[in-house]
């Protein structure tokens, strides 16, 4: 049952005198900080920067595909564009997006801790991220990489004379940044919970981030060693992936996808974390089937490690292993469906309001479902052999990554913005941008399903004229989508100074982070909290308000 709670009157809300934002000024107090909230803000700024770099590549790609002829950029340049788009978006945006910004900010508060377990390692992970970004930017300005983000051998090791090693070093370093984030989260969840915070009282945000962290910690080192081998193959010619010396390029595929498939879940699970919080808050109901949703995150993490070879059905793996991997791939749909069904059941008879985070969350649920279901198509071998390396694949993973994760990221940023900055974003403007994003997204990527099904291959910058209509639709959609992403950048920046003051709990949400002032103090809590109720207990919140003496000022 949902509990009716009135949103607080924000007229008399005031910014707290002391908060993490004014605890020390100047560049040094930010660049040498150990505070998880400040590090989250550093991440937020740098991630936004790289997101728009990656997005500008996508813009040029779509512009080139407006016409069937190769007219805007040369084919080499086009190869570099989609490669850099992939590398920047995956390693510098999607992987760290929610965990390093929102996760970093709210995870310690949600478990009732003063900080993450290892603040210095947390700061180190941001510096590693920046170094990774510098390497990748250097690869970009010094001529680019054109291997595709997958660094496929022997293409990357023998045939291309571009800055493969520079980019690989960047990705290697970004990997360690994400390992350290994951390690910090796992240790924090195990060792830093406040009294009374049992595992099954943790918000589902934490469960999903815990599962993500396991994937980061176990998967990323394998990517690291794989990239070391690629670099050695390129420089010394060691032969481990070189068939002429007895090596096997397929081994590269196995090692690469052993990380990069779980990486897909690294990218989507934190999105699911956000959605659980948002759906519950704006329908004023405990998430339906809490335990099922919690364990479905863990199940996705576990299954996620055993499906990597579905990227290799056409690369000469044996039929038997393809069969097993196909079956396992379909099994991942089960925990994903558990989440979607439980969120829908949460909405049932909830008292739903349509604030911006909720609009984005609805967008996530619809788009992720389409993306996930087409994933099942691609997991079945017959379909995969027909559709792989076409725009169908491109549309599929953009539905999951952009329609899913980016929607969830924006949902989360809007949801926790009042907590992070103490100020509200402009509501009507942001609702409009949520709708624009959704429409733009559908227009961009839905035609790609069709054009891919009809046989347009990915990664080419020219195509037969009969595909033009669908490509024009897609490019038009990308323009709308671009506006949808620029708007939040503008009004969020505006709101930093002119936004309405939020007060501690503008959404009447139940998480521990909403029971403290916004923006929070440096050590989050004045005294260590004691968790004496279940997660998402709106009755508890209502009672708390009845017995609370309001003090202002």
């Amino acid at each position: 049952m949902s509990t009716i709670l009135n949103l607080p009157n924000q007229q008399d809300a005031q910014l707290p005198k002391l908060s993490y934002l004014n605890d020390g000024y100047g560049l040094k107090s930010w660049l040498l900080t150990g505070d998880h909230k400040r590090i989250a803000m550093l991440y937020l700024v740098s991630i936004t920067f790289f997101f728009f770099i990656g997005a500008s590549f996508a813009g040029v790609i779509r512009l080139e595909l407006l016409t069937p002829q190769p007219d805007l950029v040369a084919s080499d340049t086009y190869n570099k564009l989609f490669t850099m788009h992939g590398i920047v978006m995956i390693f510098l945006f999607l992987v760290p997006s929610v965990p390093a910004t929102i996760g970093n900010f709210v995870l310690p508060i949600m478990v009732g801790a003063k900080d993450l377990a290892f603040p210095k390692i947390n700061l180190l992970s941001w510096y590693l991220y920046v170094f990774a970004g510098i390497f990748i930017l250097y690869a970009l300005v010094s001529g680019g990489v054109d291997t595709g983000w997958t660094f496929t051998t022997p293409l990357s090791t023998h045939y291309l004379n571009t800055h493969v090693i520079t980019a690989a070093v960047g990705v290697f370093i970004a990997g360690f940044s994400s390992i350290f984030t994951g390690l910090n989260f796992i240790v924090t969840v195990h060792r830093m919970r406040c009294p009374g915070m049992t595992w099954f009282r943790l918000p589902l945000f934490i469960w999903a981030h815990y599962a993500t962290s396991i994937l980061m910690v176990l998967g990323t080192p394998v990517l690291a060693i794989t990239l070391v081998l690629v670099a050695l193959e390129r420089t010394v010619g060691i032969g481990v992936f070189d068939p002429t010396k007895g090596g096997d390029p397929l081994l590269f595929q196995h090692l690469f996808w052993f990380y990069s498939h779980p990486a897909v879940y690294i990218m989507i699970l934190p999105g699911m974390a956000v959605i659980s919080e948002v759906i519950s808050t704006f329908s004023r109901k405990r998430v339906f089937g809490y335990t099922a949703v919690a364990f479905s995150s863990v199940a996705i993490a576990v299954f996620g490690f055993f499906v990597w070879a579905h990227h290799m059905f056409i690369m000469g793996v044996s039929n038997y292993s393809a069969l097993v991997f196909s079956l396992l791939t379909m099994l991942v749909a089960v925990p994903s469906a558990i989440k979607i069904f439980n969120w829908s059941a949460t909405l049932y008879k909830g008292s739903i309001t349509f604030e911006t985070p909720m609009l984005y969350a609805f967008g996530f649920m619809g788009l992720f479902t389409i993306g996930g279901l087409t994933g099942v198509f691609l997991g079945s071998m017959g379909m995969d052999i027909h559709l792989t390396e076409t725009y169908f694949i491109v549309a599929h993973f953009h539905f999951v990554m952009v329609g899913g994760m980016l929607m969830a990221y924006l949902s989360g940023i809007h949801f926790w913005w009042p907590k992070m900055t103490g100020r509200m974003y402009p509501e009507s403007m942001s609702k409009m941008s949520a709708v624009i994003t959704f429409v733009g997204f559908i227009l961009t990527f839905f035609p790609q399903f069709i054009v891919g099904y009809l046989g347009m291959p990915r990664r080419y910058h020219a195509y037969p004229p009969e595909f033009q209509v669908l490509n024009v639709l897609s490019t038009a959609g990308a323009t709308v989508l671009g506006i949808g992403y620029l708007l939040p950048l503008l009004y969020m920046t505006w709101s930093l100074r002119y936004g309405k003051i939020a007060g501690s709990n503008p959404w009447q949400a139940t998480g521990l982070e909403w029971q403290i002032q916004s923006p929070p103090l440096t050590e989050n809590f004045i005294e260590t909290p004691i968790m004496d109720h279940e997660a998402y207990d709106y009755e508890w919140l209502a009672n708390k308000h009845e017995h609370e003496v309001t003090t202002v000022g």
Partner: protein
Amino acid sequence: MDSQAIATGHEESPEAHEHPPYLRHHFVTVEQQAETASFGMWLFLLTEIMFFGGLFMAYLLYRNWYYDAFVASSNTLGIGLGTTNTAVLILSSFTMAMGVYSAETRNRKGLLTSLSLTIMLGLVFLGIKTIEYHDKYTEHHIPGANFSVEDFVHPTDKRDVPLAPDMAQHAQLFFFLYFAMTGMHALHMIIGISILFILLVQAWHGAYTNGHTSTIDNFGLYWHFVDIVWIFLFPLLYLISRHPLK
């Protein structure tokens, strides 16, 4: 709001005052801090296992495919030097364990001795490894740079079976993996020895024998991990099928 289940441990011993200087601000007790650090270290070692796992995977795969070449190449490694190094490394793990024990018993002199011995043994290991690498250079067994299949097509040792020239080429793959795996292990040794130097200087100034042992504990875990990697590398590279059945 002061009842904290985890905060009870240190109230019993009066000399462990509320906030010893090494207790970081975001922990409630020293025990919590120590457990956190140790848990983090174990997780880091897990990532290291996955990191080395990629190389082990490649080695096992190619060993299976090019069995003859790998056995022939394995036979050319110096087993005497390898065994000595194994002994040196196990001994260094012992001295490291003594270091942890000394830190716990607040024995500054014992800690300094153990850490110095560990550094020395680590350097001995690297020295012997250098000799082995140099041998590979003189035998023309450096893959890529100066590799010669001569030894595998016309073995000088009577025990060895001559290989067909194309199979002999695959010996190069063995030597590449040999250098990659032992090199990666040596890199971890070098990092370990560098950290040991820092710990030694800090211990000289009285750190780690004042009750704050968790840094030494966790470094010990790292050192033993690097040791265990070698315990797996040694049989894989030097020992298995050393004398093939004729």
